[in-house]
């Protein structure tokens, strides 16, 4: 019995040694009281808070949500810190909810503000700070709170590296995204960085980075799914006549799969695929 407990204890210590202690998630803020309502949600109970939207977070590697409310007189600011496990996943979830017309603010790796909210991501955390619906709080106060939370989390403020491979020319403002699963509606395509472009019409460019084996597997599964006559190859370029997504231009380069869709313009597709390849490390 004692031996069993000892093993259990050892297992406990090993598993949680790298975890952040609860009390370190939120900063103390002068003049504000952190409400006793501080909760942690995990994958099993996130739906209790945000219902069906939980599924989106789970698809981006959700680990936990730490939630607290700060009060000062009648003012209440709620802080939600979603721990997503990696910078890519935090950025993915953040960008999935980012509207291009929101006002960009300098915070974390990237952030924006809208009426009563400041959202940003930093390191593996997607942070939502809001007063909307709870009480009227000046926007500057919400931003100040966001800055303190950002500073407290103390993460390197960098964007995912793959985004630097996206060409600038013609790129639509804030159209960049990271799709962790079911890219283009296919279960076998995942981990795609993507952005929309406008040059000779509108199109979408994507870059998938994975192991060379995984990249090969994705490409093979894609080709297998289409009948032979729908797959054409010109040197290193694949032109796929996709049943659902129209014409897709694809190129495989080591750990990268680069593609263009929503255009028939082969010349433009080749130009952009080559531009990405030229930027590869």
């Amino acid at each position, binding site marked *: 019995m004692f031996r069993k*407990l000892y093993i*259990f204890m050892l297992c406990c210590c090993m598993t*949680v040694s790298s975890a952040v202690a609860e009390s370190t998630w939120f900063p103390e803020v002068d003049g504000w009281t952190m409400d006793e309502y501080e909760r942690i949600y995990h994958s099993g109970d996130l739906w209790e808070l945000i219902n069906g939207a939980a599924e989106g977070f789970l698809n981006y590697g959700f680990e936990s949500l730490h939630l607290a409310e700060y009060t000062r007189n009648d003012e209440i600011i709620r802080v939600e810190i979603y721990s997503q496990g990696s910078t890519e996943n935090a950025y993915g979830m953040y960008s999935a909810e980012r*509207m291009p017309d929101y006002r960009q603010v300098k915070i974390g790796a990237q952030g924006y503000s809208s009426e009563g909210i400041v959202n940003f991501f930093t390191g593996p955390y997607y942070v939502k700070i809001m007063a909307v619906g*709870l009480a009227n709080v000046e926007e500057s106060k919400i931003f100040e709170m966001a800055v303190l939370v950002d500073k407290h989390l103390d993460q390197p403020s960098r964007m995912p590296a793959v985004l630097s491979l996206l060409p600038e020319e013609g790129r639509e403002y804030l159209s960049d995204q990271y799709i962790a699963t079911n890219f283009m*509606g296919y279960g076998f395509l995942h981990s795609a960085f993507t952005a929309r472009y406008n040059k000779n019409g509108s199109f979408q460019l994507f870059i998938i980075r994975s192991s060379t084996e995984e990249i090969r597997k994705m490409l093979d599964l894609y080709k297998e799914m289409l009948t032979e006559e729908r797959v054409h190859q010109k040197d290193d370029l694949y032109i796929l006549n996709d049943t659902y997504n129209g014409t897709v231009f694809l190129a495989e380069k080591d750990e990268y799969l680069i593609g263009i869709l929503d255009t028939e313009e082969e010349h433009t597709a080749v130009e952009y695929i080559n531009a990405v390849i030229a930027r590869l490390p």
Partner: protein
Amino acid sequence: MNFNRRGFLKSSALGAAGAIISSSALGNPLAKQRQNLPVITRKLGKTGLELPIVSFGVMRSDNANLIRSALEMGYVHFDSAYSYMGGRNEQMLGEVFKEYPRDSFVISTKVQADGIDRRTGALGPGSTKEAFLAKFEESLGRLQMDYVDIFYFHQPPNREVVLAPQYLEALNEIKKQGKARFVGLSTHSNEPEVIQAAIDSNVYDIVLVGYNFKHQRAGEIKEKIALAAQKGLGIIGMKPMAGAFMDQERQHPINCKAALKWVLQDPNVHTTIPGITTFEMLTENFSVMENLELTEEEKNHLEEAKLVAGLYCGGCDDCTHQCKKHLPVHEIMRAFMYAYGYRDYDHAYAVLEEYNLSSSPCADCNECVVKCPKGILVADRIASVSKLRELPRNMLV
């Protein structure tokens, strides 16, 4: 009733629909193959809307081609919300649907009211009609539409909020102005009370309710749904896939087709809105529109999934009042889930500490009288997880 998209278009005076449908969607052979196949439809209560029994929960989908293919296959009803993807979901749908005649699809969206206390469900100072209507107008703008077919009050937590005059006024106004053909509410918790309030209101036309084979209160919800349907309300089922996994660790997927069929065995559920993010799901769910019968394999799978789900406390809290020592049993079960489900021992410890529990809280009880409705052996779990209290907490961090 059997029904196909071609028939629907004709009956909806949409004969010319194909003229402006995108060429990429028309090239979809699956769409051509599906067009003449009959699908099962049901009438959405007194709204009179005749919908295929499977609709499209758009919530997590950001692929416009998926929506176009769905329209071509025979999906008619698409469900979104103000909050999905921070508004990008409605925006994407707006871009797609402007390619189609307005009456060739049925669109629903939802708005959650501001100012409702998450802990108590009480109405606060921010819970105004104006704030609610402003969000609804924003939704219409994103969708690029003058009206939606169904507008839901998203997730009112209790009877008081369902019947709050400011929201009933807002819903009546929206309907009167023709900005929504029908109004409803969505309910994720406290379902029987919320559904009853919707019935009593005489305002809500439709109830969108979380309902699946794993749901702790499936029996109660079934009864309330039957009553609501009898009163003429349309019933739409959501979360039919029960989280898509049997376990909290998401290692054992649920047979989604079987789960969807289970919900639709209830004739009072008029349609469902499973979330769809792949073409594979699109095709699989469509097949349920054609054949609802559960195979033996599917029945067995659902039985197994129910058993696995039983490993976890559903938080019904029927147990606490049964315990002779008034232990917070469902909280201890939560600690058990943290420790054994998520290996989050610190969090488990925090729960035990919060209730000042010893390392053997059942020591002076000879027999446990607690009967968990899910069959969880409560005493064993309490004994197991409480041992954490023998450790200094700082060892767990």
